[in-house]
């Protein structure tokens, strides 16, 4: 269980950032993950009063606020039209509707979780993250950055030049964590293959020409955990990449 002494609904990003510089304080997104930790914090910093709960669109980007919920992502018409429902497919198996009504995109990306469906999708979409602190950074770079930073994730920027994208995951039981997650996108830079839940956090490989499923499997490392063995994951990856390629 987590406890904290104070609660502050931040009134500006600067205030949130300032408060977050203290190691004993913590930003609260949806709190679904945070709640499972066993820790005593000083101040809980709530970002829910900063208008970060919208998905906006301009000529270049979809700008997804950090406090947008997974359910909003699932139901957003324009973003799902753009991603051919890959957004919906990436989150629809996460726990349940009530859960997705409060779990946030910001918490999901900031956490850079190994099992993350959300991270897997946004990597293939070549998203950028907007941080108070480091500024605008490619998501691929953000996943490799130190997890000890005290930045505030403000928005996720999704460029609008992806031609097509497919999201597929394999689960032992619906609503469980994925055994493997795959997102493949056709982009001006070539084909982007994002593979997550290996069970390590998602990574991406880009190639001018489409790669064979076998080549994709060989480009990633896989591991074993309670959900599946390394060998099984490699097999599943090969099948999902092949299917995604056919669906693109």
């Amino acid at each position, binding site marked *: 269980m987590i406890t904290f002494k104070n*609660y502050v609904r931040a009134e500006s990003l600067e205030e949130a950032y300032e408060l977050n510089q203290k190691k004993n304080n913590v930003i609260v997104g949806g709190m679904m993950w945070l*709640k499972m930790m066993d820790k005593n914090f000083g101040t809980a910093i709530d970002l829910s009063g900063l208008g970060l709960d919208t998905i906006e669109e301009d000529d270049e980007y979809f700008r997804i606020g950090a406090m947008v919920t997974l359910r909003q992502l699932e139901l957003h018409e324009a973003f799902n039209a753009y991603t051919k429902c890959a957004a919906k497919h990436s989150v629809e198996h996460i726990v*349940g509707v*009530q859960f997705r009504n*409060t779990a946030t995109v910001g918490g999901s990306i900031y956490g850079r979780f190994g099992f993350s469906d959300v991270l897997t999708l946004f990597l293939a979409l070549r998203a950028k993250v907007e941080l108070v602190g480091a500024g605008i950074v490619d998501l691929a770079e953000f996943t490799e950055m130190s997890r000890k930073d005290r930045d505030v994730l403000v928005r996720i920027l999704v460029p609008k030049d992806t031609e097509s994208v497919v999201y597929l995951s394999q689960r032992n039981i619906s609503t469980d964590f994925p055994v493997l997650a795959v997102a493949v996108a056709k982009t001006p830079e070539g084909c982007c293959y994002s593979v997550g839940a290996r069970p390590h956090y998602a990574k991406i490989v880009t190639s001018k020409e489409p790669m064979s499923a076998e080549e994709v499997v060989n480009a990633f490392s896989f591991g074993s955990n309670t959900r599946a063995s390394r060998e099984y994951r490699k097999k599943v990856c090969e099948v999902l990449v092949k299917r995604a390629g056919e669906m693109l």
Partner: protein
Amino acid sequence: MEIKITLNGKLLTREIEADMLLIDFVRSEGCYSVKRGCETSNCGLCTVLMDGTPVLSCSVLAARANGHKIDTLEGLTAEAEEFVGFIADQGAEQCGFCNPGFVMNTIALLRENPDPTDEEIKKFLVGNLCRCSGYEGQLRGIRAFLEYRRGGNHE
């Protein structure tokens, strides 16, 4: 800290601890229908409506609910009455512990989608776990209710 929450239509002003969870708040106000069935935001037993949206009250801070409207089964008995009988008729309930959360989320489903398909029902209610049943009875019950509402027979 002080919060103002409209709980089941009544505006409450209360002094709470900063880290109080919404589930503990509503229970302290006598809403015992709201149950805690897990520690991992997984079971759906604690479902309440926040501004009409179903959320897990075990994972929402009471402080975040400040200024919002919260509804529990205690405040929605009339709406629940419409369909709970159909579920009971199927013998779906055994211990009944999961029932309030299940009913709350079904209310949310039927408000959003008054005539859902089986697939839509399952997708919406998948986050409501039941240890006793195989979910078939609940599905049959909701189906029977929809059938009745469409003007068909109530078996």
